[in-house]
């Protein structure tokens, strides 16, 4: 491109502006609750990524002869029923639960979001078919359905991700479809059709950017629900299987300690709760930001 420059007096049109500074400006104006949420999420991500380096022991390493040991300097949160270090398993739990929940949510959005937009673009029988199929899936109680499917196919991590993603994609589908419905009637979508654009362009360039704020907000909430579902399934024994550390099963395996006045099983439960609250703070702020609503003064 540079070789052509001297031959003609063609001006070089200035390049696009960067968005990094805009993001920083927006962040500076974020309320405390959002900052709290973002810091907590960052901490969780840090722990999830670096668990093997931070944790004092191995994930499934039996480090003590004493099961259900009390808190001490060697084992900060005591040990579990097999004598594994609770603190270590708490850190590894972040990695497993978060990673699986993230993968599941992403998959749910790819399936549900994609089909939802397609249904809104084509309408007619495609929309009817997809919508009724989704209604049918949603009619069955989600947790029980997941339990049935997991006991049929076996509870491996892949099955867990696929089953929960498919079940959750029904909700994403409904949202994506209804939001996209308001976008596909816009003149710019018609203009793109008149131009002769293909489905891919209309889906990714015309519709998707306009429903993105809602979808991102839903992503945060959906992530919480997936996360809770996985924890619930693990608590019931059909989720993430031992010896993989996971917060839901940690609560289940150590639940009896509550009767001995020991709050250790509440800590993984608290970790779940804290993350849910943090994600919701950020989502709230984001929704407020993109809705364009002003505070009345």
């Amino acid at each position, binding site marked *: *491109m540079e070789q052509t420059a001297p031959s003609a007096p*063609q*001006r*070089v*049109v*200035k390049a*696009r*502006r960067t968005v990094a500074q805009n993001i920083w400006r927006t962040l500076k*104006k974020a309320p405390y609750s959002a900052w709290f949420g973002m810091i907590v999420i960052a901490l969780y991500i840090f722990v999830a990524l670096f668990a093997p380096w931070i944790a004092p022991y191995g994930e499934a390493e039996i480090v003590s002869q004493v099961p259900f040991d009390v808190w001490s300097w060697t084992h900060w949160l005591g040990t579990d029923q097999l004598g594994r270090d609770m603190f270590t398993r708490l850190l590894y739990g972040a990695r497993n639960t978060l990673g699986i929940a993230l993968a599941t949510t992403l998959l749910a959005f790819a399936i549900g979001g994609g089909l939802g937009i397609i249904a809104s673009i084509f309408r007619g029988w495609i929309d009817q078919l997809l919508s009724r199929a989704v209604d049918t899936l949603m009619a069955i109680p989600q947790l029980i359905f997941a339990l049935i499917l997991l006991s049929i196919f076996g509870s491996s991590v892949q099955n867990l991700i696929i089953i929960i993603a498919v079940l959750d994609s029904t909700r994403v589908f409904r949202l994506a479809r209804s939001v996209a419905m308001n976008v596909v009637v*816009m*003149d*710019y979508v*018609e*203009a793109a*059709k*008149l*131009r*002769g*654009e293909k489905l891919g362009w209309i889906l990714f*360039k*015309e519709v998707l*950017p*306009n429903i*993105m704020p809602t979808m991102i907000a839903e992503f945060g909430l959906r992530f919480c629900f997936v996360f809770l579902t996985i924890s619930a399934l693990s608590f019931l024994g059909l989720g993430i299987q031992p010896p993989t550390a996971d917060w839901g099963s940690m609560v289940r395996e150590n639940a009896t300690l509550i009767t001995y006045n020991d709050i250790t099983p509440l800590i993984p439960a608290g970790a779940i709760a804290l993350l849910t609250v943090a994600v919701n703070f950020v989502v709230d702020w984001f929704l407020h930001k993109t809705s364009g609503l*002003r505070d*009345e*003064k």
Partner: protein
Amino acid sequence: MKSERTKGEVLLEIRDLKIEGQSDDVWHEIVKGVGLTLRRGEVLGLIGESGAGKSTIGLAAMGFARPGCRITGGSIVFDGMDLRKASEEERRALRGSRIAYVAQSAAASFNPAHRIIDQTVETAVGHDVRPRNEAEADAKDLYTRLKLPNPATIGNRYPHQVSGGQLQRAMTAMAMSCRPDLIIFDEPTTALDVTTQVDVLAAMRDIVEQFNTAAIYITHDLAVVAQMAHRIMVLRHGKLVEEAPTREMLTQPKEAYTKTLWAVRSLAMPERTAKDVVLRIHDVDATYGGVIKVLENVTVQVPRGRTVAVVGESGSGKSTLARVITGLLPPKKGEVYFNGKPLPRALKDRDKETLRRVQMIYQSADTALNPRQRVRDVIGRPLEFYLGLKGQERDRKVVELLEQIELSEDLIDRFPGELSGGQKQRICIARALAADPELIICDEVTSALDQIVQEGILKLLLKLQKETNVSYLFITHDIATVRAIADEIVVMYQGRVVQQGLKTEVLSPPHPAYTELLLSSVPQMDPDWLTHLLEKRAAAKAKVKA
């Protein structure tokens, strides 16, 4: 009579009003010290382009500021009571009962879930002005005075069951239900067809006179306000430009800006003829869902490098015609010929080259531009898609097009939300132009814009036609626009072509009945126009009866 009404007791006095609005967390002054005096029974017209602060002042007369706005200075004295110092309770007692408001879109202001009469009497009953049964009888009386059809039963309908013009009159009845001292009309006829506008204007003028109600009439159309108001104030950028009694304002405007308010009316282009036909629509029928016939035996020709204006009220099938040409609605019968060859009926059967030749510009640039695409991408996409331009080559062409539509290169990375209404419509024109088309369909492209902006857009379209010899099919309901741009006119009514021909032929009498109605309904810059028109129509009706 008009002079009497300007001498009565002062009802509303606004002094040095200052209002600020918030955008991007910064407060800007949007009304900069405006004062006005309104006497009992007087009608004051507020006029100006969008953003002049008309509506904001109208709402401030009720002591109200929209969310994101705040009143920062001045006084608003209504009948001896300073609304700025009054408590919210006191102001609420006034609103609806002594000061009423009629909004632009009646359809958006009525609750679709309740019957019209329930909503009409709501304020009167709510303010304990009169009991429910009396209020209903009164509402029916008001419907009669406003000349609504079947006044005894129309209230039992739901808002979607009556026409836009009727709904706007029902809203006036609602405002009147407490016999307020002051009514604020905020662009009440802007969304209506010219033919309906006449009836609504006549009804509103009548009822305001009958009850000696004072009114503030907000509009951007000087010809409309001339029929209603005794006195007119011209506003711009939140400041008063000029204030004068209506007749004086029309005959001797003092400020140059006031004259630009009828800018489009001063444009007139001599018609040109051409032999070479670019588009020929032959005997087309079109239906929605195969049942409702929206076009019947429509035949229209567009000469190359010329402009054909399609006029008619809403529902006449103008926009459907555009959908047939673009292939969005395949015709049931008939053919569309482009450069002498029949066009494939459906959009999906047309190739890229065919699509490129016919481009479309929409009425509302707000919905025609993707809010998440920058100007660079909006204009660049057709260049990329049809002509295969990429990178710097594409961007250079985008800048060229921006120059052609008289916009600065600096706008290239803006989002549509960061542009003004006129700029957005120019971007839409550039997008159409980027494809280097032979025909551009313009669907009401100027009707959402201010007069002065309209003038700019129309001039630009004419300039572009001269440069590129492109043809326009110009769909509009505004006769002033037709005068400014068209070579030929097609008049449509209920899906049929009523009349077509060269501009001078269609605009000069004798007219077919519908063309006559349409042309006579266009408000003129004459304060007596409405009175004369109504007299003429009444006389004609009496003649038919005799």
